[in-house]
């Protein structure tokens, strides 16, 4: 333990209630951004709202803007983000704010489903489990994006999301890509239709912020490129 303090500036949404408040938080050796926010709520401002669940980077509930960068706060060590001894924390970008640091993630998940981000199976619980070669290229491609924790960090990082309401966003499109490569999935046509619709993959400008900031080191940009490739092929084949 040290005697030092951290200057935590918390920007609370939404607008009418919005305020930029500075808190002096005691610094500790092992301390995450979430711990800083929690300390404020537990010790000085009991009205501060934020969201978390697992506290170890598995649930994707705790993402916020930290110094203007979207991050999973439970797995971000404070020393990584301190500028001097200061840090600015704000609600996640690109989603409506419920209160303070809590955003409404419905749009993010609605788009996930709109991108056909769910399994389209042909087999049932009566069938044996299919054999899948773990080294096949399709499986490897599919596997690459499957460990997404839907934290919406990529969604917050992407400027296309902020300027194009319909855009499905990197996480949803990446999910569609994992399904397109999943040999057990039978929804190819549906998925391609979904990802070439109004907010489809063609809207992505390959800014790469999604890939740059994904805390799990996933690569939605390349997944979306994959979708564009498949969509283009199917466009040439079917003329749509």
């Amino acid at each position, binding site marked *: 333990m040290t005697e030092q303090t951290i200057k935590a500036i918390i920007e609370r949404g939404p*607008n009418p209630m919005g305020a*930029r408040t500075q808190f002096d938080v005691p610094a500790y050796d092992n301390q995450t951004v979430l711990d800083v926010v929690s300390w404020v709520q537990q010790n000085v401002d009991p009205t501060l709202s934020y969201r978390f669940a697992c506290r170890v980077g598995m649930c994707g509930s705790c993402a916020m803007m930290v110094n203007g960068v979207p991050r999973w706060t439970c797995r971000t060590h404070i020393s990584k983000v301190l500028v001097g001894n200061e840090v600015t924390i704000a609600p996640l970008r690109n989603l409506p704010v419920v209160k303070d640091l809590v955003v409404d993630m419905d749009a993010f998940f609605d788009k996930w489903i709109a991108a056909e981000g769910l399994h389209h199976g042909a087999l049932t619980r009566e069938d044996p489990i299919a054999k899948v070669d773990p080294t096949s290229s399709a499986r490897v491609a599919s596997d690459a994006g499957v460990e997404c924790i839907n934290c919406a960090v990529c969604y917050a990082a992407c400027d296309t999301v902020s300027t194009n309401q319909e855009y499905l966003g990197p996480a949803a499109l990446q999910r569609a890509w994992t399904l397109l490569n999943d040999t057990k999935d039978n929804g190819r046509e549906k998925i391609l239709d979904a990802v070439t619709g109004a907010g489809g993959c063609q809207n992505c400008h390959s800014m*790469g*912020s999604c890939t740059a900031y994904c805390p799990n080191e996933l*690569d939605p940009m390349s997944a979306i490129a994959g979708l564009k490739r498949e969509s283009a092929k199917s466009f040439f084949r079917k003329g749509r």
Partner: protein
Amino acid sequence: MGGDFRMKASKSIKARAHPLWLAYALHRLSGLGLALFLPLHFWVLALAVTNPGQLDRFLQLTDAGIVKLAEFGLVFLLAVHFFGGLRLIALEWLPWTAPQKSLAAGAAAVSFMVATLFLLKAI
């Protein structure tokens, strides 16, 4: 109002400082620049029929430093946009997951070379 200013601050994003985003910005701005320049370019060329003398006077202007610089800018824009665009199409349509950053950097470098070559020739 202070309040408004504050909320603006919260929306500011600093998550753009990486090569791919800069490549995107460069591509968009160069595209925008080209699209805005194009009507001018067409209009000037059309002078060939309507008013050849004026076209000549205009073309003589290209010797002036300022105009040279502007031209360099244009060729630069075209080169940047051209290589950036090819990079994008390659990234999107060719099945590589190549190191995108070096591709972006490469595209920028080649654009510079072409534009500089043009400038040198022009001088």
